[in-house]
C-alpha cells in the first residue's frame, strides 16, 4: 500500500533543531561544556526522531487484501486487519483510525465519533521489530448494504513523542462487509409447480432424460426398439429395457421493481417498503436453492454492462444464492432506476425459458406482455404485500394486475 505521509509535529522538530544550534553556538562562545552537550543531545534527539519516523513510515506494510465478509443483520464476524513492520525498529504509541460506513459496527471497539453515515474508530497498536500482527475486530451487521472503510489512517509518534506522522492510505481499502437482507417469508410459494421437460429428477414426472440411464428391467411387449439395452440383454441372455431418470424443468425468473408505489410509500415509508421487497426477493431465492430450482433476477436499476439493468443470470446452488444475496445487498435506494416496463420489454425479446415468473413491487406494465408470457407457458405470479405479510397471487390471462 502506498501511504500519504503528513508530519504532524514538524514545527516542534524545527524548533528543537534551532534550539540545538543556538545552544551549541552559545556554548562555543560562552565556553560551557554543559550547554554544548545539552545542545548536542537535543540535536541528536531531533535527528534520531526524524530518522526513526523516516524508516518506520517506509517499512510499515498493509497488504490491502481483496476480501469480503458476509453476514446477515445481527450476525457478528471476526475481521483481521493484518499489518507488518518490516523494519528493525519497534513501533510504539501508534494509533489506527478507521472510518466505516454504518451498515456495520465494531463491537469490541467503541466509536470515537458517530457521524450520519459513518462511524470513526481509533485503536492503539504497537509492533515489535519485524513483526506481522493481525488486529481482530468483531464486526456486527446492522442493516442491509455493503459497508466500506472510507478512511484508513495510521498515526505514529516517535519514542520521545517529539514528532508524529499521520499515514493515510491513498487507495480504497478493498475489504467489503456485505450485510445480506433479512429473509421474510412469502406464503403460497409451495404451490408454485409446473412440469416441463428438463433435467431435475422427480420420480413422478412424465418426462425422461434420455442421457441418464438409471437401470434396466425385463423387456415387455410394446417397449420401443430404441429403449432396448443391447449390452445388458447380451450379458443377461434375455431382452432388457433401459430405464431413464424421470426429470422436469423448473426455473424461476424474479423481477424486482425498485420504483415504489407512492400510495404504498405513504403507508409504509420508502425505506421500509424497499427493504421488505428486497427481503421477500431474498426469501424466494433461498427457497429456490433449497428446492434445487434454478433462478434469475431482474432489477430495474441502471447498469453499465451488456444489459442496461441489473441482472443475475440463471443459476442454481449455494454459490448462486450467495451471488443473489450479494446483489440484493448492493441495491441502493439512491441508485439510478429505470421504468420496469422497459426491463420487462427487453426481457420479453428473449425466449422465456422459465416456468415461473415472479413480479415483486409496483406493477404498471401492460397486460398484453403478461398474456404473451402466459401463452408461452409461463406461470405468472405477483407478490402481494399486506400489513406484515406477503403472499403470491397468480396472474390469469386477460386480466390486469391491480
Amino acid at each position, binding site marked *: 500500500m502506498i501511504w500519504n505521509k503528513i508530519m504532524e509535529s514538524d514545527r516542534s522538530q524545527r524548533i528543537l533543531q534551532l534550539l540545538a544550534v543556538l545552544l551549541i553556538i552559545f556554548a562555543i562562545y560562552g565556553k560551557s561544556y554543559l550547554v554544548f552537550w545539552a545542545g548536542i543531545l537535543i540535536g541528536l534527539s531531533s535527528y534520531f526522531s526524524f530518522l526513526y519516523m523516516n524508516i518506520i513510515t517506509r517499512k510499515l506494510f498493509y497488504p490491502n487484501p481483496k476480501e469480503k465478509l*458476509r453476514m*446477515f443483520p445481527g450476525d457478528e464476524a471476526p475481521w483481521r486487519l493484518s499489518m507488518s513492520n518490516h523494519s528493525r525498529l519497534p513501533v510504539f504509541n501508534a494509533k489506527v483510525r478507521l472510518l466505516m460506513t454504518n451498515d456495520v459496527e465494531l463491537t469490541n471497539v467503541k466509536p470515537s465519533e458517530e457521524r450520519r453515515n459513518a462511524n470513526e474508530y481509533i485503536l492503539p497498536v504497537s509492533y515489535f521489530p519485524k513483526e506481522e500482527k493481525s488486529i481482530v475486530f468483531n464486526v456486527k451487521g446492522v442493516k442491509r448494504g455493503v459497508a466500506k472503510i472510507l478512511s484508513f489512517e495510521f498515526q505514529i509518534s516517535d519514542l520521545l513523542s517529539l514528532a508524529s506522522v499521520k499515514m493515510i492510505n491513498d487507495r480504497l481499502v478493498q475489504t467489503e462487509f456485505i450485510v*445480506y437482507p433479512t429473509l421474510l417469508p412469502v406464503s403460497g410459494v409451495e404451490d408454485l409447480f409446473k412440469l416441463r421437460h428438463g433435467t431435475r429428477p422427480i420420480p413422478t414426472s412424465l418426462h425422461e432424460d434420455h442421457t441418464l440411464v438409471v437401470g434396466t428391467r425385463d423387456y415387455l411387449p410394446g417397449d420401443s426398439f430404441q429403449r432396448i439395452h443391447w449390452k445388458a440383454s447380451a450379458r443377461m441372455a434375455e431382452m432388457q429395457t433401459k430405464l431413464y431418470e424421470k426429470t422436469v424443468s423448473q426455473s424461476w425468473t424474479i423481477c424486482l421493481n425498485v420504483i415504489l408505489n407512492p400510495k404504498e410509500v405513504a403507508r409504509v415509508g420508502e425505506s421500509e417498503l424497499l427493504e421488505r421487497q428486497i427481503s421477500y426477493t431474498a426469501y424466494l431465492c433461498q427457497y429456490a436453492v433449497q428446492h434445487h430450482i434454478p433462478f434469475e433476477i431482474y432489477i430495474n436499476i441502471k447498469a453499465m454492462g451488456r444489459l442496461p439493468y441489473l441482472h443475475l443470470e440463471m*443459476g442454481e446452488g*449455494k454459490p448462486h*444464492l*450467495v451471488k443473489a*444475496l450479494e446483489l440484493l445487498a448492493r441495491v441502493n435506494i439512491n441508485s439510478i432506476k429505470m421504468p420496469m416496463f422497459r426491463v420487462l420489454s427487453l426481457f420479453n425479446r428473449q425466449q422465456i425459458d422459465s416456468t415461473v415468473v415472479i413480479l415483486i413491487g409496483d406493477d404498471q406494465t401492460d397486460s398484453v406482455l403478461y398474456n404473451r408470457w402466459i401463452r408461452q407457458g409461463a406461470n405468472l405470479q405477483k407478490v402481494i404485500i399486506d400489513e406484515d405479510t406477503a403472499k403470491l397471487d397468480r396472474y390469469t390471462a386477460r386480466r390486469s394486475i391491480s
Partner: protein
Amino acid sequence: MKKSIGKVLIGKEESVEFILVALLARGHVLMEDVPGTGKTMLAKSIAKSIAGSFRRVQFTPDVLPSDVTGIQYLNPKTREFETRFGPVMTNVLLADEINRATPRTQSSLLEVMEERQVTIDVITNALPDPFIVLATQNPIESHGTFPLPEAQMDRFLLKLNVGYPSLQEERQMMRAYRNEEPIEKLKPVFTTEEIVFMQKMIKEVRLSEEIEEYILRIILETRKSKNIEVGVSPRGTLAFMRALQAYAWLHGRDYVIPEDCKKLAPVVLAHRLVLSMEGELRKTQLQIIMDILDVIEVPVESGAINQ
C-alpha cells in the same frame, strides 16, 4: 528445484514448495485461479524438473473416460486384443481445465488418482511411480463447465490458488522473458528413483503426541462446526499427516511443529469441507479453516519436539 523453477515462474516459490509436498506425500494437486496466472506453466515446469515421463490432457466436454484411461482394441494384423493405455500412464499428468470434462470423465481420472492403477476391460495395470496429477481449473468460467463433485474433492491432497505476482515480481518476470523463454533452459533436477526414495524417507518424520492431538482437534472441529455440513474425512486426516511429514522433511526436520500445521491446513483441509447453507452464505472454506486454527490451542514447543 525451487531455485530452478523460480527462474521460470517468478514469485511462485511457495506454490512450488506445496507441489513438492504433494509429490513427496504421494498426493495430487488442484490449482485454481483466474486465467494467465501461470497454472499451466507451473505444472509444465514441475514436469520438466523431474526426469520422468510427462503427459498432458486438455479437457473438453467431448473427452471420454477411455481417452484418459485407455482402450482395448483388436489388432487386425495379429488378430489379438491389445491394450493402448491413455495419458494416465505417466509420472506427471497435467489435467488442464479439469472442470471442462464431463462428470464421467472426471470420475474416471479421480478413480485412477486414488487407486494408482488403471483397469481397461479386465486388465488392471499399476501406474508408474512416482505418479502425480497436476490439475488446473478456472473458477470464473461457468458456461460449459462441470464443477468437480464436492465429495470427490478430497482426492486432491492440495488445492492451490496460484495468485498474481507482486509489482516487483512482475517487473522481474518482464525482464526475464524479454529476450528468452526460461522454460526451455529448465533441466531435470531429480530422477524418478530419487523421488521414490524421498517418498519413503518422509515416513521417518515423527509426530509427537501433542502434534497428533493438535491435528485431531483441528479435524474434529471441522466435523462439529455449525457452518460445515461434511467435515474432513479420515482420508483427509491421513493426507494432512503425510503432507506435514513431507513439509517438515523439506525443511530439514525429522519432526513436525505446530507452524507446519498452520501453514498446510488451509491448502490441505479447506477444499475438503462441504459447507452448510448457513456456512456457505457467510464464509468461504478458507475463512472457516482460519477461524478453526484461531480457536484451537497451539501446543507448546517443548512438547512438540519430545519423542
